[in-house]
């Protein structure tokens, strides 16, 4: 039967006292390793060109200093940003928050989800991590992307969300 009960705004579920689930702590390590590899590759390339062309190291000192200056924040940033990321799977939606300076909280209702995808790069697999992507209509790729979940967690969430999506379609 059709019901249309009145809703008191202050009784709506809010997000004030949510228990945010953390991204897997290994994700910070994984990000650091990835960035370290990039920095190392640039460093090696620079060194190689220095030696080949025979430019004395003292002349390109500033270049090395700049590389160092970039590398330090790049490598330490994951330690700050990863703990800030969190997600909550609720009965009817999934909420994801991220950002240190620009903080954002995004919520995707399950009855708008088109499909769910998990993915992992070789580096992710090395750390036993996976990424979860939730797609809604009209989005431009990856509408909600939660990177760095434990591989098991990601799979569990994928199955759970799919189940919820299926249920919401049957209710139509």
């Amino acid at each position, binding site marked *: 039967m059709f019901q249309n009960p009145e*809703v008191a*705004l202050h009784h*709506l*579920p*809010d*997000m004030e006292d949510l228990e945010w689930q953390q991204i897997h702590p290994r994700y910070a390590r994984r990000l650091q390793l990835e960035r370290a590899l990039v920095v190392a590759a640039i460093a090696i390339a620079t060194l190689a060109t220095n030696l080949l062309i025979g430019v004395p190291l003292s002349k390109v000192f500033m270049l090395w200093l700049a590389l160092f200056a970039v590398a330090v924040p790049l490598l330490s940033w994951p330690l700050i940003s990863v703990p800030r990321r969190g997600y909550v799977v609720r009965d*009817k*939606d999934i909420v994801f928050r991220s*950002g240190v*300076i*620009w*903080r*954002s*909280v*995004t*919520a*995707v*209702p*399950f*009855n*708008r989800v088109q499909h769910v995808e998990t993915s992992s790069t070789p580096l992710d697999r090395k750390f036993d991590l996976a990424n979860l992507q939730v*797609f*809604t*209509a*009209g*989005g*431009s*790729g990856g*509408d*909600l992307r939660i990177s760095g979940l434990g591989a098991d967690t990601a799979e569990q969430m994928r199955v759970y969300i799919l189940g919820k999506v299926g249920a919401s379609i049957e*209710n*139509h």
Partner: protein
Amino acid sequence: MKTTKPGQWQRTSPLAVLFFFGKLLKVITKNAWQSLAPLVAFVYAYEGELVTKIVVGAIAFFVISSSIAVLNYWFFRFQLNDDSILIRQGVVKKKQIDIKFDRIQGINTQQNVVYRYFGLVTINFDTAGSSGSEGNLPAVTRAFAESLRSKIGEQRDRDDAGHEEPDVDPLLTLGWRDMVRIGLADRRALIVFAVLGPLLERLGDDADTVIANTIEQAADGAFRFGVASGVAIVTTAVIGLILLFALISIAAALLRYHNFELFIDGNTLRSHGGLLTRHEVSMHLGKIQTLRLEQGLVMRWLNRFQLSARQARSSQKQGKGKNLIVPVVTAEVANHLRELLLAPEGDSLMQIPSSERFSAISPYYMRSHILFVGLLPAITATLLFWQVLGSASLAFLLWLPAIILLSYQSWQRAGYLLSAEGLVRRSGLVGYRSAALLYRKVQRVSVTQSRYQRRKDLASLRVYMASGSVRIPYIEHATAKQLRDYILYKVESSQQAWH
């Protein structure tokens, strides 16, 4: 086409050759040089006079392209099944497209002069969201298009298929005055003027020589007369050009929107119009995601708006979702249309920008604009060019007041209006834009806060629709959170389909 049995491969009318010919011409003009290269080579190799060469070239071009068009027609076949339509096409590279009826957002048709004579249309399937299934069906009968329409449940079943007009009174008809309005308000006309700017300058130079000559000729005291005629020439030329482009623009409007009519036919919004090629666009009312009302400078002066109903766009082709555009409406009609299109929930979603019911956003909105778009670039440019230009580089600081003015303007125009079922966001810089949406069609919501916004307890809310997102910047954090929770509640408790 009357004998359309399901599950049988069939060809469209031979007149479809016209469609393929047109398509080929389009492709050629797009990649003009590459496609014409073989032809040029052929003409070059052929010995003879220039005129003969050109004639031979033209004939060769015509023969080659029409045979390609004929081949395209010959290899184009389609099959109508219970739940989908299969299209097989391609001469060298074969392609099979499977268009499922439940994926079709709308069936739009076009009818050029020849087709109109024979009662044929070209169907354009609008399938937002599913890739690789965008298709055209050239030169089929109108009755067939109608039967397809009813098949995808787009309109009430109608057994007397084939009659021209839907049997409902149009909500809106555009007359020649509206064509003039559309033509004048066309942004492309402004672009033409921008391109024309340098040309006009050169024309001015020529006029100078004319003036100089006149002066020389009338050396004894007829000086004033010379200057006067010079100025007259320039003015006439400029006004003439402006008039010419206004005319071209109006002609373009006439070409696209002549006899434009808008209907609501059952649950479907339909429009048709066009002088030579008749465009017919249709959209299921339930598929409308956002309703946008826009007013540029000229439209403001004319006291008119442009209304567009947007539906879900495909994720593959950004922003390629088909919109149904009503090119010119009065505020009154726009209000009436909104009530019809977003019925029954959209009643209080007033979109007219001058409405008192809009709430302002926080004036802190201007700060980040002024800081990052104004102050920072101005100071950087001044410092960078200090060595080269000296104190003249201080002129870059003039950028700042301009940005301050623009930021203020954009803040004043920004606003939002909330109702129990949906919201309207107003924005604009020179003109106005407003977008209305229903909460229950929202796909996802996010609340974002910068460091500065956190300090002022402000936030920006972004509501993602299947047709794109709508952002309300710099509102109270508490309002943003409450609105988000309310939207989520509306979406999650909605039992209605969003499309």
